[in-house]
């Protein structure tokens, strides 16, 4: 973290101008005079770089994610910056206003963290464990499938349709996730199965 940043955040914490000015009186000025006239230290020093692809549109710009920590080494890693990949033939390192701010998408305060259940009629979500959530889902789905599965049509023809539960697949998940999702959904006989391509 470079001096100016730590300084500025400190100031934010300090808030009021009075506090700020008094910092001067406390000799804060002198303390930083040393680094003063130097350009800001380069903030990507000692970060881990990872090749990734922008999650938004289908130009699929190459991006480099800079993080503290390295997930490949099993460490906890925190994303600190995102930049276009200069080696990528399509975007040549450039990014659009969305891509350039990918970091704040990943670190949005509204990122979901825990499974939640909203009970019928309730006005709130309640946190539950993954096991509770997944068991509940499996049960709800099986019961509905068993109750409403259409094995044969009027003419006695095997049609094996499950129409009373539907699924919308994501548009930003990987092909690999899509294939796994496809297998499960079609395997269960879900016909109301669609994705963003329709929109």
């Amino acid at each position, binding site marked *: 973290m470079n001096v100016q940043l730590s300084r500025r955040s400190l100031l934010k914490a300090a808030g009021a101008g009075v506090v700020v000015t008094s910092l001067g009186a406390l000799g804060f000025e002198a303390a930083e005079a040393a680094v003063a006239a130097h350009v800001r230290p380069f903030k990507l020093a000692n970060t881990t770089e990872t090749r990734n692809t922008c999650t938004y549109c289908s130009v699929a710009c190459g991006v480099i994610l800079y993080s503290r920590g390295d997930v490949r080494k099993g460490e906890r890693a925190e994303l600190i910056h995102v930049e276009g990949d200069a080696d990528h033939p*399509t975007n040549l390192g450039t990014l659009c206003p969305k891509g350039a701010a990918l970091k704040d*998408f990943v670190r949005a305060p509204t990122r979901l963290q825990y*499974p939640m259940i909203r009970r019928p009629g309730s*006005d709130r979500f309640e946190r539950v464990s993954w096991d509770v959530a997944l068991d509940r889902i499996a049960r709800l789905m099986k019961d509905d499938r068993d109750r409403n599965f259409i094995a044969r049509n009027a003419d006695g023809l095997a*049609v094996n349709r499950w129409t009373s539960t539907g699924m*919308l697949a994501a548009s930003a998940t990987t*092909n690999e996730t899509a294939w796994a999702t496809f297998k499960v959904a079609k395997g269960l006989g879900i016909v109301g199965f669609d994705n963003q391509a329709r929109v």
Partner: protein
Amino acid sequence: MTNSWTDIRNTDLVVVMGGNAAEAHPCGFKWVTEAKAHRGAKLIVIDPRYTRTASVADFYAPIRQGSDIAFLMGLIRYCIENGKVQWEYAKAYTNASFIVKEGFGYSDGLFSGYDPEKRDYDRSSWDYEIGEDGYAKVDPTLEHPRCVWNLLKRHVDFYTPEMVERICGTPKEKFLKVAQMIGECSTATRTMTSMYALGWTQHSHGAQNIRGMAMLQLILGNIGVRGGGMNALRGHSNIQGLTDLGLMSHLLTGYLNMPTEAEPDFETYMKSRQFKPLRPGQTSYWQNYRKFMVSFQKAMWGSAATAENNWCYDYLPKLDVPSYDVLRMFEMMNDGQVNGYICQGFNPLLAFPNRAKLTSALSKLKFLITMDPLETETARFWENHGDFNPVDTASIQTEVIQLPTVCFAEDEGSLTNSGRWLQWFWPAATPPGEAKHDTRIMGEIFLRMRELYRKEGGAFPDPILNLSWEYHDPREPEPAELAKEINGRALTDLTDPADPNKVLVPAGKQVLNFSQLRDDGSTMCGCWIYSGCFNEAGNNMARRDNRDPGGLGTYPNWTWAWPLNRRTLYNAASADTQGRPWDPSRKIIEWDGSKWVGDDVPDIAPTAKPGQVLPFIMNPEGSARLFSRGMMRDGPFPAHMEPFESPVPNVLNPRMRGNPVARIFRNDVAQFGNPDEFPFAATSYRLTEHFHYWTKHNRVNAVLQPEFFVEISEELAKLRNVTNGGWVRVWSKRGEVKARALVTKRIRPLICDGRTVHVVGIPLHWGFTGAARKGFGPNSLTPFVGEANIETPAVKAFLVNLEPSTAPQDRPGVTS
């Protein structure tokens, strides 16, 4: 896209119509500005609004939303009339010379065989005359009155520049300027590219918009060449991939189709698909359908799929309707016929039309499961947010389970971009809290259900119990494992048909690509068009060699493109009937006397002689279709159709509303508005500062475009006493929104058929969750009707009314 993003740099003329590339795909648009700067290319924008793309265009022409077909047919008429046709290409590579059956006809905007009761056509007359030899009859001289070329000439004759102006509101001289610029691209050495997106697809006649331009491109000889093609700018990072992998109601992987009730057994299903060539010596690649289908079924059910049980053909659901698309599902939901719904990274409450109907439908569910990295309006559809989501929470009995997933930064795998490049990426961050990979969630749900079926039995458990699920950790299949499955492998030694002792692929090894797939169950392959992405050479999607030998933006060794790492589709059409490139300076491949060579993978058998084997190998004709036979529900030629909500009647046939064969549900008809009540023509679109409903969660993008607004002309503002930056209420037959008014010179009233048409522009990025200010989406207003062939919601042209108003109110105690 038939071409790649980087290929756009090779064009001479960019036509952006039905899209807004600069705004929605800025980094891809770079190649337009490069072509302008370094090839002297020109850019034309045709749009109801003067967009960001228009701001850097050489020429801008306004058009009324939904009237594109008339404009495009007008262009074709202009080209034919003024000899702006690449004759050698059009004659050799299109079905211009094919003779159409007796009985095919067209009048009052309708083709032969229309049944108003069924709202459908009997398409039997829309086909070629077949000779005794079983081949389609052709007249290379193009003199036969019923040859496609002459039918086309007659069909487009109606669309004179005057008629175009009358329908589209585009001033005649502006239309002619566009036509003249486009006409220049009919020579072999000038190419034009078409960049379009949802501005064309989201109409009840969306597919015909695109066909219109495709036909024009064929006439100009611009398909298969560098700097040409039809380039659909897909919206999401992997929407192409999910479509390729068949995550749709009517599809299986690689554009194989879901069986229907009309195909009770495997052979019947097969018969209607292995098309025989319609002309001598043509490829008709779909003859390999069976290999792909069987390999796919082996990938699904492994050893359970045998020749005896038709490779588990019965396990596949059989459709009784064309598709259980999203609109149909929400209609059924609203009817109480759907109990459960799973939204994986999807926010239908804002994405689909008629929000009031969506809310009512979701409220009738027993359970809703959402998987997402972010809060979504859908997961909280039951939560009251005052005007922004006026629901009675207590009365909604839906159980909602919200599951946190990772996002790209914490995930690994491949995404398929608009140019069909499959690009592998790696994780960089630790997921927040307890967020999990989608693969883990799907795995866990599947394993739990399989376990329940093992223990309890239940309705037709076989496809579940036998689903092939052999992964290192069944709870969470690894991306590489899945990718290898998609590529396919040999299940037994694959021997050379010529020499049984020669093993081409040993059992258990990855197949090289789909050319090695078999229909005898000896191979498995998840998605044939992706076969080759992860073979014995390794993960080709992870390749990062960005060298460009030809210097024309091919990048053959950068990741991997489907099919077979081919970068330009139909590239065999980039050479003439002798195999010489139309434009040597933009060569893709050429015939060296014995085989095709060049820096892209030929889109034709490597040794197929030019002139004999035609380039459009997926078609039984071998040529491209100006006349699409019975392939489309709404006509073999595009004919002008108005939106279901239009400010003017259809000049071809005033009794015709919208697309005559588009599916509409009874209750929705009552919700169509008329111009007397809703005088203004609205359209919905994206802004460059935001991505759908995602970036409103991002503080930076929220700062760059903080608050919902609608764009109107100075004239309309005057008409309704609206002040710039003030609040307005916009309402349709289906709902209302309150927005800030942005009064602009970039929108101007159009004169269509003698009436003034005011356009209202409604961006779509706001909701009631996230960092940006609370707002509405246009889907509170849009009609619940889909495209006639593919059911894409028609949300680009509808009617609204507008008046000054007060600010919307959040629920008591919340200030927004």
